[in-house]
């Protein structure tokens, strides 16, 4: 509103071909109102499905409100008490720590590295090998979470599990003895497809001539990777890491494998929120406070990554 000098090319006569300014924001030539009209549907959807729920979560977080019992009938306004309780709740700290472990090992390290290695080693493989690999890896990604969780339960079952049958370790309760390792490996297995596809595409953008020059200069494969490939696809790496970090942060599938147990040892934040807000205690207000903290954590991660992306430009 503050810039009266903004030109309106849409209203300007066609003959006036000289650009009004070197930094004309109206590249498409739509004018303010028509541009607003184009953006409005998207903005309205964002407002309804993103901004409103976030505000609603903030509001619920200010209430002593539960799914059952007296406070379901008459919620009490408690100000910021839920938030102060949440920050001093040892279960929350533990869940946050476990979430960071989960995201760090399964997404940032696991999916990223495995996805890249698959894309790198199979980039020149025969077509049918690549198709087979794509189908296998994609299957893990596109199958519904509940189906996949059931398959993994059959794999890891203590008495009749496939894994115990192969290793002759009947009686080993994998999900109880190593809950975090199980959900981390599970998520690497499940989510690698996305990273692999993204890196396959990214590797195609590396000019063959650069690699050829490096080879002629006597660079070993490792040196080619470090000095030619990685610098070229750096922005893809950041984008990929941002996306999989956020997805994994909010991932609920671990619940289907370990239920957050045993003894809260694999209780990541989304599982913790579910158990607080809906199962057991059913404290919707308190759970909303955690949800908002999770939202803020997501925003912080997103901002950090976007800063890094800009810095590399």
């Amino acid at each position, binding site marked *: 509103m503050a810039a009266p000098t903004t030109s309106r090319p849409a209203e300007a006569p066609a003959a006036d071909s000289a650009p009004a300014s070197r930094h004309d924001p109206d590249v498409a030539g739509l004018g303010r109102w028509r541009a607003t009209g184009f953006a409005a549907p998207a903005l309205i959807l964002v407002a309804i499905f993103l901004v409103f729920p976030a505000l609603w979560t903030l509001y619920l977080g200010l209430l002593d409100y539960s*799914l059952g019992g007296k406070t379901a009938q008459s*919620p009490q306004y408690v100000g910021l008490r839920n938030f102060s309780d949440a920050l001093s709740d040892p279960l929350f700290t533990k869940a946050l720590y476990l979430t960071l472990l989960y995201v760090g090992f399964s997404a940032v390290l696991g999916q990223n590295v495995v996805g890249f290695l698959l894309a790198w080693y199979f980039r020149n493989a025969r077509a049918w090998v690549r198709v087979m690999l794509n189908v296998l890896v994609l299957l893990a990604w596109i199958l519904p979470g509940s189906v996949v969780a059931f398959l993994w339960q059959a794999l890891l079952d203590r008495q009749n599990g496939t894994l115990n049958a192969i290793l002759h370790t009947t009686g080993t309760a994998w999900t109880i003895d190593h809950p975090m390792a199980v959900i981390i490996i599970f998520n690497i297995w499940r989510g690698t497809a996305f990273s692999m596809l993204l890196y396959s595409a990214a590797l195609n953008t590396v000019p063959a001539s650069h690699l050829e020059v490096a080879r002629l200069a006597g660079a070993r494969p490792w040196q080619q990777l470090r000095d030619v490939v990685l610098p070229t696809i750096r922005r893809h790496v950041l984008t990929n890491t941002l996306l999989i970090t956020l997805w994994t942060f909010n991932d609920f599938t671990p619940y289907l494998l370990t239920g957050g147990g045993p003894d809260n040892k694999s209780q990541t934040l989304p599982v913790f929120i579910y158990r607080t807000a809906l199962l057991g205690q059913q404290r919707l207000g308190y759970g909303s406070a955690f949800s908002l903290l999770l939202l803020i954590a997501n925003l912080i991660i997103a901002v950090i990554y976007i800063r890094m992306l800009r810095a590399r430009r």
Partner: protein
Amino acid sequence: MRVRVAAVVSCTAVATLLLSGCVSGKKTKTNPSQNTSAKSVSLTISANDVVGGKNAAEATWITKDVIPGFVAMEKAKGVTAKVSFVGAGVDDEKYKQKLELDLHTGKASDVFAADGIWLGELASAGYVKPLSQVVGSAATSWDGWAQISKTVQQNLSYQGQIYGIPNGTDGRVIYFNKKLFAQAGLPATWQPKSWDDILAAGQKLKALPGVDPIQINAGTPMGEATTAQGFLPLLAGTGQPLFDESTKKWQGATPQVTAVLDFYRKIYRQGLGDPKLQQDQSGRDESFAEFSKGKIGMLVESDYLWRSIICPDKSQSGCNTTAMPDRNTTVGYALIPAEKAGEGVNGQNFVSVSGGTGWLLNPGTKYPQQAWELLSYMQSAAAQEQLSKAQTRISARADVNTATLNSDPLLTFIADKVLPITVYRPSDENYDAVSVALQQATADVVAGKSPQAAAKTYQSTLEKAVGGADHVQTG
């Protein structure tokens, strides 16, 4: 830029203010005479039953007997009734969660099953209303009430008002495998007289390879089964009820609570039980499977195990993987002893815990009178006898019990020996939160915490759950 920030902040503030007061409880208005003379009625029934799965016998009874019977009855009156059954086959905690969400959003079935211990929570949330308000005189003057004892009616009563028709009751006993007992040199007519007798038998069973001597439910994954089948019968054996009705106080880290947790320690930290089974997400089902295969020596459960899990008939769906064709000769049952003889509640030698489910009406139903007709039809003597043909259980109705219970030795045992000494759980709105805290305490002990430390943690959780230390009894 500064203008924009101010705009965002003020918009957010306005939105938050507008939202304030948006959340309020359900104020369902009941109108018993609504649609009384409707010629076309549609009703739904929901329960945690599913044909071919969990509680299959009841699901089959609803779809094959109740619905056709009710539709025919209404047709004779010139009313076209359409009744559908919404089944489920999940853990009780998850069924309850779904039920409360359904009631909260006004989408619950007209007639639904609920556990009596949930009533305090449902009623204080305004999700259910007394029958006198939803239905009126048709319900209060029902002839079936004369057949249902006051104790059983208590299961679906809250603050002196009755909210639905009870489905029956149950009782907890110790089941044991006579074959394993014989191998361990224990008698087939075993009846422990104290907790030490249980541990001593466990020590003998421990010598058998591949056998877990004792299964007393512990931990959070088993949910209410930990509280009802494990902690509470043991606590009753120390002479203290969980909730003192006269002082309105819950038991905190008392010596009795600590004694129960110490008994858990003796079982699960000294090799008499399998701690991992208590931490397993499907631990309860696993324990049933192991018991049916003769890999567990003794197990505390209600009559549910006998009739729905280890039934001799493999073709009865629900039992197909855990059926025990030789159940009647292999499985024995004994009363749960007090910690020491005479130290149980009311000075008893033996104790038990009972509960019971029932059928409630959604206060928001469009057809209150017709929903009541359906409900009272389900709990009529004729329909209950049909149910007992599919599966004998302790009905709420005395007339039905007289006609059916004699055919089953365990149910006769529970009706004659267990029900007179049993205790019921408090129907308080905080019960569920207390129950979860108790489950956590047993989980802590199974994982290796000392009973004293687990009891201390339990007390601090309890104080938060019931609204302060004033409601908690210590020492």
